[in-house]
């Protein structure tokens, strides 16, 4: 019979192999699912994974979708390493979008050079504000940050809807719940001509570098690692856990807020009632798929970005429902968590006694 037994030390090879194995299993399951839905699996997989990035524009779109995922997942990975679970990044993204977009609309029609920097700062601050309450309640009342940060997502979405119906609605619009279009000066510059790839992608790469330095070369990074791997050792060493909670929540909230204002000042170009297709939740998958490591997160975000594009493409070309994307992403995380068993344990074949 098959049985699992613990390895003496975690396998480094398996740490890297598990995501690839999980991807392969997800694709195989996807093919089965497509045939079950009555589609030719080969063609459906082509529309999903190859079609969207077969030209320059498609590759740039992958970057457009990956940028917010990278920013959010980087922040989340710091908390997850320390066993601190901010799962409300979607709310922090939405509030960052509100604050950043709100600044641009308040200054309308002013179009100066400092509008965009101010928007970005407001977006980061908005994300931090939205992350502050879960961090405060966790450090002050020991309240589960999982539940409070998640409740804040629903509240942020309602705040945005409220503002779209009222304060920030386009006064010249035909009662559509949307803001005015942002002025050109309030939009992130395009970094690849004739595509939608904007400066946010560069922010994402820069953030990956900064997070890598933080985790690899600073005391804070070391404290985060110890707090996650050996909480008791961290306590005996006198590491301030509350400080780590605040720090990880502020970084992840700020980065999610930046991702939010990046959407408003990037591909969307205005405030709308729904500013994200669930990037804040999907980034959780990105963080795990990327092994909570900055380089891994960048690669994982590209894969997940492809799944968004693939879902849209398969809907247009193969008539598949858009919800397939969510199923794929959930499956991928399932398989990944299952494959991760190979890091700590090995599977042995034993004859039954």
């Amino acid at each position: 019979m098959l049985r699992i037994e613990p390895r003496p030390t975690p396998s480094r090879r398996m740490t890297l192999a598990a995501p690839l194995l999980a991807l392969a299993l997800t694709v195989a399951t996807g093919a089965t699912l497509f045939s079950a839905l009555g589609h030719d699996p080969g063609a459906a997989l082509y529309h999903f994974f190859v079609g969207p990035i077969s030209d320059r524009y498609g590759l740039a779109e992958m970057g457009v979708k990956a940028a917010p995922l990278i920013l959010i997942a980087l922040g989340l990975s710091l908390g997850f390493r320390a066993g601190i679970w901010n799962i409300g990044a979607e709310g922090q993204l939405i509030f960052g979008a509100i604050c950043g977009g709100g600044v641009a609309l308040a200054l309308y029609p002013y179009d100066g050079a400092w509008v965009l920097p101010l928007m970005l700062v407001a977006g980061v601050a908005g994300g931090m504000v939205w992350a502050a309450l879960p961090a405060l309640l966790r450090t002050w009342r020991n309240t589960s940050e999982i539940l409070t940060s998640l409740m804040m997502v629903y509240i942020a979405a309602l705040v945005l809807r409220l503002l779209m119906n009222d304060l920030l609605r386009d006064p010249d619009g035909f009662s559509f719940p949307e803001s005015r279009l942002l002025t050109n000066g309030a939009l992130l510059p395009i970094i690849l001509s004739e595509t939608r790839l904007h400066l946010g992608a560069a922010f994402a790469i820069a953030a990956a570098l900064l997070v890598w330095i933080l985790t690899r070369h600073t005391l804070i990074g070391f404290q985060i690692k110890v707090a996650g791997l050996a909480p008791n050792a961290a306590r005996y060493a006198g590491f301030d856990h509350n400080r780590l909670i605040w720090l990880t929540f502020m970084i992840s909230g700020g980065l999610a807020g930046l991702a939010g204002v990046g959407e408003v000042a990037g591909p969307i170009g205005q405030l709308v009632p729904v500013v994200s297709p669930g990037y804040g939740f999907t980034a959780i998958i990105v963080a795990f798929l990327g092994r909570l490591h900055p380089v891994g997160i960048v690669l994982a975000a590209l894969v997940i970005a492809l799944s968004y594009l693939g879902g849209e493409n398969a809907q247009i070309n193969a008539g598949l429902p858009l919800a397939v994307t969510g199923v794929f992403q959930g499956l991928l995380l399932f398989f990944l968590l299952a494959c991760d068993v190979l890091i700590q344990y090995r599977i042995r074949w034993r004859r039954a006694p």
Partner: protein
Amino acid sequence: MTDFLILGSIAMAATPLVFAALGELVTERAGVLNLGVEGMMLMGAVCGFIAVASGAHWIVGAAAGALAGACLASLFAALVLGFAANQVASGLALTIFGTGLSALIGSNYVGTPVDKIPAVLWGLDPMVFAALAMSAAIALWLYRTRQGLILRAVGENAEAAHAHGHTVLKVRLLAIMFGGAMSGLGGAYLSLAYTPLWAEGMTAGRGWIALALVVFGAWRPGRVLIGAYLFGSVGVLQLHAQSSGLLAIPSEILSMLPYIATIAVLALLTTRQQQSRAPAALGQAFHRLR
């Protein structure tokens, strides 16, 4: 008469929360934290709805919802019991997967009407009473039976329970499956009696509120039941304020009430003393060889 109607609508708003929170309570009492309640409720809602929309009796629909919840829960069980995976991450995966899969299989049923579960007494349907009966039954089972004692022992100290000869993984598997079935039942109640319609993401965070209720109720069935009814009344208050139009408050702010109430309640009640009532082994993986 209106007071009576309000009481009835509170009971209907509370019932899905009662089912889901009681299921999660049993799971957590066995030492397993399943954050996938939202996903399991959505799968229960869509499967129950499809069964009834295809002409089945509502009892079959409710059973289909429970079965769907249990099936999804078995995936979670495979991960955390079979592969000793992290419970928090696995629960999140379950919610993401359940949200996507329910949207996928329910896409053809959006806007389809079904017959509401018929009322039997005081204008209330049998599921309302079933939820009340379940909470009494679970309380009795947990505190007055040998099996209930074993379940609690597994949740408090899995190693000791194992040393006593109890199969920890089997107990946890059954507790996870039961929790999934109850969540599915709660979801099916939403789509078959409360709305009664199917819409993507229709649970709107009720799965997470159910998780908060377990903490609020200090892992005790009676207090979880009271908490669910309190939350039901917050929801009904919001609906009445919205429909009466007496208050000049935008509907979005009223819709925030249940979420704000959840945060407030958690902040007020999760003192250290309250948390010391949590099952001691909650969230810890168990492996026979460790």
